[in-house]
């Protein structure tokens, strides 16, 4: 029903107050595509992590820049791009240091550094382009084992009569 060439673009100020609007939009699109609630939660967190990073790391002046998001629904996946025009960073270098806390002792813990790890753990693909600013491209596949849920979602989409 939602075709592959169409997309939604959302631009928000690089301000944490606006990230919830992005999550709500994502929720609206993803339910219509037939994603399960768990998949949608995964995407909400991953996209928020990308936005958090723009707000925390991309712009030197607080409340200056913008975050540009593009949601492109495909038949079998949702591709989400999160772009900023801020200072860039070396993703390959950074990603090497990225790790969860499973093997740590409590005194070794640091409070930060979980964002990129979570994006990678929650999405099927994470690609980062850094140059004039940063573009993070997050991809989530529509799972096929979830076919039952999706069929019933699709019913609601096409509005079939129940009962």
């Amino acid at each position, binding site marked *: 029903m939602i075709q592959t060439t169409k997309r939604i673009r959302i631009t928000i100020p690089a301000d944490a107050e606006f990230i919830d609007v992005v999550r709500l939009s994502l929720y609206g699109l993803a*339910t219509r595509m037939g994603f399960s609630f768990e998949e949608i939660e995964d995407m909400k967190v991953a996209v928020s992590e990308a936005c958090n990073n723009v707000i925390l790391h991309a712009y030197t002046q607080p409340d200056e820049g913008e975050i540009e998001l593009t949601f492109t629904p495909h038949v079998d996946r949702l591709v989400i791009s999160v772009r900023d025009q801020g200072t860039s960073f070396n993703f390959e270098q950074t990603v090497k240091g990225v790790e969860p806390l499973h093997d740590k002792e409590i005194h070794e813990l640091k409070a930060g550094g979980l964002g990129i790890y979570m994006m990678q753990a929650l999405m099927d693909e994470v690609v980062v382009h850094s140059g004039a600013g940063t573009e993070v491209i997050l991809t989530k596949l529509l799972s096929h084992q979830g076919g039952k849920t999706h069929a019933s*979602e699709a019913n*609601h989409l096409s509005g079939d009569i*129940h*009962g």
Partner: protein
Amino acid sequence: MTNPNLFHIHHEETDTGTTLYLIGQLDLSMAVHFRSVVEPLAMNADKTLTLNLRDLRYIDSTGLGILVAILKVREEVGQTLIVEDVTPKVQRLLDLTGISKFLRPVPDQTAEQKGGAV
């Protein structure tokens, strides 16, 4: 576990009447579907037609326009349209547009509180 906003219709049929429960958001994306379901039923003069709006979470001019079209069809076949369990949110739009006065409320439930539809 489904998105409560996605529109669907629950259909209940008795010997004397049909009740459609409209569930979720009735907007432009669902208008053609809704119309295709309700119009044939509206043309049947032998049965009452009731729309239960308890779980209708959203409606705009698209859906209201279909209600108007259905009202006219019911009038033509010498029947009425019963609309029941209207939430305040939806009632407000029915009042605002003036559609309320054409709807026959269910006597026992809504007549007193909503007051004075024909």
